[in-house]
């Protein structure tokens, strides 16, 4: 068990390192960062001087090594645009993204798992067809389009929710978002809802045909117990990994949703940083989101181990 844990951790760190390298190289392919910092009237000599001063004249690998060295000490450079440490900017945006991701995940689990269970336990009925249709719809509707439609219907026409921005209120010392989170969270959750609905359906369908479910029925157990202890508990095993992976994507911030709803989260920050070619800010954001994605995959594996006794003892 410990060996399994250690090997998973090792792979996680290696993967994070690989992602950082890729992001770093891709950014440098887009062009010279120094040209962004100087005025249009700067002479080539001035540009060269700045390049040397900032260390951009050195080989890329050396620059990458320095970036990693600084990153390990928590220094991700300063944003060109905001003139602040890049990681500080990222950290400021985290709460908004965590709020959005959590609410979206909650909605997705609530809707997706319910739809999936209803469909899976009544295979090939009208209910199942509706459930499958909803699942497919959730996965195929483009989120940016959905976001706009939601704004038109629920903000402009009905006026139930604000069209953009994050409004908060205080609750026993906590700053929580008010109903302004509903529309963006719903739009963000829909893909995950669709995926969860489809996976839950097939998992339930598969488990329902297992012999231990027949055993459970032969024991005269109540329907509720068969569902909770036999069907759902076994179906949950594959779902945990999907929920974990989906949450990591939600947490890394949605560029579309956060931009459309002007939600001040990581996705919004990344969109800005990329469009202004704010090198250090992009790197810091990329580091953070990969860290979250890879970290949650690791956590998912650990939860998996706890839930499925067969993995625990391997």
């Amino acid at each position, binding site marked *: 068990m410990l060996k399994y844990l250690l090997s998973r951790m090792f792979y996680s760190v290696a993967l994070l390192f690989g992602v950082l390298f890729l992001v770093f190289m891709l950014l440098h392919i887009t062009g010279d960062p120094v040209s962004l910092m100087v005025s249009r009237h700067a002479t080539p000599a001035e540009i060269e001087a700045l390049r040397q001063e900032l260390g951009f004249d050195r080989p890329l690998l050396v620059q990458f090594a320095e970036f990693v060295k600084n990153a390990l000490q928590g220094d991700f450079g300063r944003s060109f645009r905001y003139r602040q440490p890049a990681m500080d900017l990222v950290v400021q945006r985290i709460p908004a993204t965590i709020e959005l991701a959590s609410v979206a995940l909650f909605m997705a689990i609530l809707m997706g798992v319910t739809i999936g269970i209803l469909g899976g336990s009544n295979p090939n009925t009208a209910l199942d067809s509706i459930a499958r249709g909803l699942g497919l719809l959730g996965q195929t509707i483009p989120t940016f389009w959905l976001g706009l439609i939601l704004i038109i219907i629920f903000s402009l026409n009905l006026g139930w929710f604000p069209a953009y921005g994050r409004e908060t209120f205080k609750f026993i010392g906590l700053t929580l978002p008010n109903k302004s989170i509903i529309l963006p969270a719903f739009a963000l959750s829909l893909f995950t809802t669709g995926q969860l609905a489809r996976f839950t359906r097939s998992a339930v369908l598969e488990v329902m045909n*297992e012999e231990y479910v*027949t055993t459970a029925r032969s024991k*005269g*157990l109540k329907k509720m117990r068969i569902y909770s202890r036999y069907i759902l508990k076994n179906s949950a095993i594959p779902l945990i990994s999907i929920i974990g992976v989906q949450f990591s994507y939600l947490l890394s911030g949605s560029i579309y949703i956060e931009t459309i709803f002007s939600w001040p989260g990581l996705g919004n920050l990344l969109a800005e940083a990329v469009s202004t070619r704010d090198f250090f800010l992009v790197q810091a954001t990329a580091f953070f989101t990969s860290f979250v994605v890879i970290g949650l995959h690791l956590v998912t594996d650990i939860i998996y181990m706890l839930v499925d006794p*067969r993995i625990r003892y391997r």
Partner: protein
Amino acid sequence: MKPILSVQNLCTRFDTFDGSVFAVNDVSFDLMPGETLAVVGESGSGKSVTMLSILGLLPRSSSKVSGHAYYSAGAGAAEVDLISLSSDELNRYRGNHISIIFQDALRSLNPVLTVGEQITESLATHKGYDKKKAYKRAIELLELVGISQPDKRFNNYPHMFSGGMRQRAMIAIAISCTPDILIADEPTTALDVTIQTQIIELTRHLQHELGMAVIWITHDLGVVAGLAERVLVMYGGTGVETAPVDQLYEKPLHPYTQGLLGAIPSIAGSGTHRLVSIEGSPPDMFQKPKHCQYTWRCPHVFERCWNEIPPAFEVAEKHFSKCFYDLIKKEPRAEDR
């Protein structure tokens, strides 16, 4: 004496995309309290489906069961027709008065519940035991089925058990509420021979201890001889012959039973004989039977066999055979019954 279970004219049909499958066609048998009935027949002869039908364990949406299965719990108790009950009503009997164990114990146990939980949940459901009482009883049961260190094993998951131990655990679950009837659906087929003997011995021991009747489904005629008092031979979804076990082995009176017994390899021979087999293949289950299902393979077949389904003739005391050919007189039967 009144039978504890009386199955009458049981038919089971599955509706599939390719048409209806007639899996069980008119099966009738009685089970006496405390006796062991062996049900033998080849794969697809409807042995398991018969038992699953009685317990209402087939998917209700795709299967159609007709006929009767009267269960009466002891003298004076009212008879209930299990076939007519709803799933909720059946839950009072399943696992409580009638239990079943299956071939593959690994797949029949829930992988994410401990063995102990799977025993105690039956006790809680049917007997209303609280946690402490159920735990105590579960430990007794594990001991009874021969699992050592039961208090430690209680918290184990099924995959931590060996094959034989899993089947023992299944038996512990099945007998937890001291049922009147235990249906054993080929419980030893997946086990190796030494373990197989242990499980059979265990079942016999428990049967004496608890006084329950056992229906033992198998395709292994070797197992039957030392185990059962009576045998029901099934072919093509119907019971073709039923007799006390000695009588069946000595004087089989249905051509299929004769073929089946003739196919048992003998150790007395010179060892150069080819294995005997019954010519032909089992019947097509997509057709609703209009005549005896053994006609295609039967050495004694004559015209009447192709036109009618034979009723059960009482060929000797407690010995019934569904065949128009009289194997004693070596000629077609003159009249019915």
